[in-house]
């Protein structure tokens, strides 16, 4: 047995270093290194003909700024994030409110609610692809029957509806996550202020807006942050369902980075677009954290 005295202090459990080492090393290898490598790559100009790379630090970044497809992708990404987030938030809260009860059977309902979360996103994409199919898809056929859509304009094949089609799949899969967070928040709220409010004359809806929402504000903000960041990285649904199409109608930033990487093999520029996504996420989430005074 090694006595404690024989080890230098920074290697003993009294020092933070041994505790931090495993997770720090994982973060360095799988988080920091790829980011730094991407950054390094983005400083090179790649010649597609010769496949040679040349150190030109501003080349890709200038290209990024003048690339209309990037700006379109930023717009599509933001639209996607905002719509999906609002839908998931509202639906998540409504479902959580319905499930926030001790009545018999609701425990099972709460458990069943989480089922969509275990389906891999690519499978969800495939599933919705089938349901949107204009000849036998249940969703498409229902919408045709209700005269809300025409078979001549398939959901994923029409630029005005394709993004909505992808968003629905995302909402189906990720609303349960919001429900879980909201339920945890709702179940932890103290009961007495609500009783006091009902004695003060508040109706259920007034209690929700005057008490539940303000008391849940930190949890809601955190849920928005977690889901928001995740939504910015949207790739699988787009790849499986529309492959950025029709045209570039559903091309998000990550999808564009993927296209640049796999279709043109311009690795430095693909890295630059990917880094641009990271920058957008960092800026948006920092502003959000600042505005909503979120503390970790």
């Amino acid at each position, binding site marked *: 047995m090694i006595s404690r005295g024989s080890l230098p202090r920074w290697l003993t459990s009294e020092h933070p270093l041994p505790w931090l080492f495993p997770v720090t090393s994982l973060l360095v290898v799988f988080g920091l290194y790829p980011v730094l490598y991407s950054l390094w790559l983005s400083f090179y100009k790649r010649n597609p003909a010769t496949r040679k790379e040349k150190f030109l630090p501003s080349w890709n970044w200038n290209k990024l700024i003048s690339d209309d497809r990037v700006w379109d992708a930023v717009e599509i990404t933001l639209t996607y994030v905002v719509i999906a987030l609002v839908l998931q938030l509202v639906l998540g809260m409504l479902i959580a409110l319905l499930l926030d009860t001790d009545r018999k059977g609701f425990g099972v309902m709460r458990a069943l609610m989480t089922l969509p979360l275990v389906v891999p996103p690519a499978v969800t994409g495939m599933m919705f692809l089938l349901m949107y199919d204009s000849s036998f898809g249940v969703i498409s056929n229902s919408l045709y029957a209700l005269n809300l859509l025409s078979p001549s304009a398939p959901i994923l094949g029409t630029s005005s509806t394709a993004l909505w089609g992808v968003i629905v799949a995302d909402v189906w899969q990720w609303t349960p996550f919001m429900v879980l967070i909201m339920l945890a928040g709702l179940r932890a709220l103290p009961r007495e202020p609500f*009783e006091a409010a009902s004695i003060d004359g508040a109706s259920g809806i007034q209690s929700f807006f005057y008490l539940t929402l303000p008391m849940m504000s930190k949890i809601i903000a955190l849920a928005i942050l977690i889901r928001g960041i995740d939504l910015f990285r949207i790739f699988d649904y787009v790849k499986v369902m529309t492959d950025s199409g029709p045209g570039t109608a559903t091309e998000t930033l990550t999808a564009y980075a993927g296209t640049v990487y796999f279709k043109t093999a311009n690795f430095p520029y693909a890295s630059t677009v990917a880094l641009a996504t990271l920058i957008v996420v960092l800026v948006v989430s920092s502003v959000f954290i600042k505005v909503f005074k979120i503390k970790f």
Partner: protein
Amino acid sequence: MASVKISNLQKRYGNIEVLHELDLDVADGRFIVLLGPSGCGKSTLLRMIAGLESVTSGDILFDGKRMNDVHAKDRNIAMVFQNYALYAHMSVRKNMAFSMRLNKTDKKTIDEKVNWASSILGLDEYLDRLPKELSGGQRQRVAMGRAIVRDPEVFLFDEPLSNLDAKLRVQMRTEIKDLHQRLNTTTVYVTHDQIEAMTMADEVVIMRDGYIEQSGTPMEIYDHPNNLFVAQFIGSPSMNILECEVAGQGASSVAVCKGVTLPLPLERSFSTGSKIHYGIRPEHLQISKKSAMHDSAGDQSSLSATVRVVEPTGPEIHVYASLAGQDICAITRERLELQPGEEILLRPDISHVHLFDGETSNAL
């Protein structure tokens, strides 16, 4: 203000009956205290009056109007909760104004009422603070402020002082009583603290296991407990109870407890051999030091006991002693120098003896 009438009120949770056909009348403007140990159903009863718990059977009437199916928000009551139940994200001002904002009272009236309440409760300088920036006593006052601005028919208090320290509790007790005297609103107050009940109530209702054991003015209950439970529950230190058997006949009958003979009131008659609980409050036992004089006099009405613990409280001294193997407490205002192990004489004041049936525990 309203009178509150409870008749045949029953509450069940599944198969468990927690309140058993209770009847209670609270006259308009009265301050009544529901007192009892934990789990006796007093808070449940209060919450039923508030409309926070449903009624299984029976009626709750405010001024003769049936309230069973009226929602809490429409009962025009105000309630102060044990843990204050303040709205944590609202300032003191907004907490107090909340009910008026809901019923769309104009801003001028809201300001007037909030200022009136805050001046009564000494909260003027805290109006713009959040509850978390206040001390326990201040929070409790905000909860009371929130209740009084409503000008309710009935005030309900659910153990409002139990989270406060002893000194603050005494202070708030006086404030609540003072407030009731000023506003004269019908009040139902729940507590497990008998001192609170005794000091504040016009009428005390003692509950146990979902039944009302006795109700009456504090002094009625103290002086004439209906049964053994009430006798022991009210009073601190609680009444001494000795299990005895009646010996002798007529005027010469005495109670015998493990060889110790205790005097019985002359005007009462008891059947020989009957079992009784002999109750005497600590302040009705006169303590004297055992001296040679006493010994020789052979005083029949005095009981010899051995001091176990002496607790000086300032105004009086509590003496815990052992009498024929039973613990007994006596209180004296004399400055007696007593030591543990010392022999003392206790003389019960015969006019204040409480006797209870050995089997039913009811007062004889």
